[in-house]
């Protein structure tokens, strides 16, 4: 598991591609004819002003929304729509804009929940928790403990998530997504509502996940500093349309992007 270099990414194998995707809710067109790809091993940012369709795009990718038009190719397999469980089983994990954890459960149990797809023993075995089921649980617990160590959350292992501060909840949520050992990790505003220090920590974790586990990451983020520092390539949406796509430097200089963010006189 080696972190891919820039040239690897430029020539890289496409992990996921969306082609000509359009999505509308009644008369509202959330996404219009958008195409882009995510290459193996990169950190891909999706940015855009409010209401540009970023979260809708993530929801299309992991099958929560069904686009009216367009195709999604994931690992060489093309389909018109993704189903959430196909996405999860196929190695796509995500975190949410508003933390979506089991609040009454401990951080440890929340992350263990991320392993559920990897559990092979059925309900019966898990209930009696004996013999092979125990061995399996030990194996999963080891993976989860590695993640806890990775994210430096040993001290909150046994704390119910509802009692944790927001920044730590976000970290637990990232942990749960990592527990799935995803090939593609979708992060919806991982740094929203954080202070500078928490943002720096989270950025560090995102980079480490990418390097250490070799996970491909697609993230939505509003903090431009974070986006420019973290990502290999950026796609910019505005009013549901793609207006730019390229490296952070290219995107920064793009006139359409500047107009979209600063506004233009009509």
């Amino acid at each position, binding site marked *: 598991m*080696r*972190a891919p270099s820039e040239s690897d990414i430029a020539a890289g194998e496409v992990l996921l591609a969306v082609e000509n995707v359009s999505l509308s809710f009644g008369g509202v067109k959330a996404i219009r004819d958008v195409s882009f790809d995510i290459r193996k091993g990169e950190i891909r940012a999706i940015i855009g002003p409010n209401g540009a369709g970023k979260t809708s795009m993530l929801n299309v990718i992991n099958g929560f929304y069904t686009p009216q038009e367009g195709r999604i190719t994931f690992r060489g397999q093309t389909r018109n729509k993704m189903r959430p469980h196909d996405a999860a089983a196929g190695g796509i994990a995500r975190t949410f804009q508003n933390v979506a954890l089991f609040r009454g459960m401990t951080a440890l149990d929340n992350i263990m929940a991320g392993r559920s797809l990897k559990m092979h023993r059925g309900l019966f075995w898990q209930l009696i928790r004996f013999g092979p089921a125990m061995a399996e649980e030990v194996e999963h*617990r*080891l993976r989860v*403990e*590695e993640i*806890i*160590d*990775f994210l*430096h959350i*040993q*001290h909150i*292992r046994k704390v119910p998530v509802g009692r944790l501060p927001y920044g730590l909840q976000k970290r637990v949520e990232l942990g749960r997504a990592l527990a799935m050992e995803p090939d593609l990790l979708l992060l919806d505003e991982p740094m929203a509502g954080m202070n500078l220090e928490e943002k720096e920590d989270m950025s560090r974790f995102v980079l*480490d996940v990418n*390097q*250490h586990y070799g996970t491909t990451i697609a993230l939505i983020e509003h903090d431009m500093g974070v986006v420019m520092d973290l990502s290999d390539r950026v796609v910019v949406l505005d009013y549901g349309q793609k207006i730019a796509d390229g490296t952070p430097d290219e995107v920064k200089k793009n006139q359409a992007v500047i107009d979209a963010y600063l506004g233009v006189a009509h």
Partner: protein
Amino acid sequence: MGAHAPADADTFPKLLIHNARIRGARPAIRHKDLGIWQTWTWAQVLDEVRAFSVGLEELGVKRGDTIAIIGSNKPRLYWAMCAAQAIGAVPVPIYADSVADEMAYVLDHAEVKIAIAENQEQVDKLLSVSDKLPKLAHIVYDEPRGLRDYDHARLTWIDQVQKNGRDALKDPERLRRWERSVADTRGGDLAIILYTSGTTGRPKGVMLTHENVLISARNGNLFDQLGENEEVIAYLPIAWVGDHIFSYAQSYVAGFCVNCPEAGETVVEDRREIGTTYAFAPPRIYENLLTLTMVRMEDAGALKRRMFHFFIDFARKWGEKILNGEKVPLWARLVYKIGDFLVYAPLKNRFGLSKIRVGYTAGEAIGPEIFRFYRALGVNLKQLYGQTEASVYITAQPDGEIYADTVGKPNIDVDVKIDDSGEVLFKSPGVFQGYYKDPEKTAETKTPDGWVRTGDAGFFDPKTGHLKIIDRAKDVGRLNDGTLFAPKYIENKLKFYPNIKEAVAYGDKRDYVTVMLNIDLVAVGSWAERNNIIYGSYQELAGHPRVYEMIEKHVDEVNRSLVEEGPMAGAQIRRFLILHKELDADDGELTRTQKVRRGFIAERYQPLVTALYDGSKEADISTEVTFEDGRKGVISARVAIRDLTPIPVRKPAMEKAA
């Protein structure tokens, strides 16, 4: 008590081999990793240290080289110390939280050849200053995370170092060579250089030999009868002499197990899981535990809260007596037992102190309330006085002789004397060899006949025979009649009263001692409410005659305690006043760490100081103040001054007669 090491095991590596032989299967060190306590026995530690040691040799370490160790309490960093010592190299632990420049100073001064760093953070710091350190040839790291893509030309993972060592050790001749190099270590060899954190000036490297450290550790073990069954938790900085003795030397000497916590934030939980029997902590750790408990109790249900307060009050009354083995009525013992079942034992379990036999606090004065709280619960908390230059032990309180305001009696083999200026000097087997590359400072500290100046002023309490530390020696002055005057000592006594927030004492080169006081607005305010005293402002409350009356009682009590203590009897407070405004760091009256700036205050309140010594009953003062928004204003006030009747000093002769 476990068997003690034979006399020929006079160095750390020799002790390690000895321990691996006689208690090879016993746990030597644990580390909580991935949520589980991982254990290494003495035999395993020997194997790890040997591989590490030979691996370091492969990296080019030679006898006499210095090796820096930077990081938190991790088994492999402790092993690094012994691994270096086994081949005659000298470990130099460095505070993990020091910034790159401080680190660079120590590395440069100690001429470090190889640095062993815990993780990426420390490696980054080292790399950022490496161009200033031509002698630093190689960096070895413990945690590989984030370091994968670094240039490994001068960077090696400990696993790799140990693997190189193990490969080399396949040659039996190499093993014999290593064993010979251990046999060649001598008790008088330099074992470690500990840099003192240096609150004033540059850090100084204290050189200690194997004998210094090991004899001190052995005496410490004897003093408290520590054996191989103790459990300690290592969480204080490894560069601090305290941790070096408690978590390294004493463990090697007695053969007990050291536990390394999972992370800095999990120490309390980890301590609870282990159930330490021997503990050491600065006062603030005990304070924090207590505050946390009190805050949590406020959130508890009414029944639990009442139960808690009833039994805690009961324990304050009887607990210490029971712990000290004094005569206590049977009914009190019974109630204490019930309290133990309902409150004390669960509380101690929370603190991780259920199995504690000996707990020490040191470093600074602990509030008597906090000290007594733990003792009341049955925790054998004691005080100790030590220094890096002494390999820790100077004095400690023996079991059953515990006082909140002393630091105990001289340890085994330690001689303590007080010189004419009041400074404490000591002589012991732990006395350091000198400051590294600083003979001048060494000569200032060590007298030609082997005594070491502590820089602290103190005296032996005539009642208990214990040493009391009163102040830094340079702050101690004398009254005109020659009586010892220790301002901080008097101020601390006053500040232990909740009603008094700050105190500033004067007396050096004066006829008598006077103090200026600040009341504590919260404490005195609520007292005023309960006593129907009406006031409109801080200034009015501070000047209220009944407040003066109350404070006068406190000052009088302080005088009484000074008289009881003998040497300070002449330094009774004769006159005091209550300041009309709070001393504030914004006005430069306090330092940012809330210490009073005596000299500055004397200048600023010149008219008041004059009035304190010219006999006037009141004085006018106007001072400039800085408000929180930065505006400046002037506060004027007329401040009253009270006289106190001095308490007659009983002459020692009379005591003998009685």
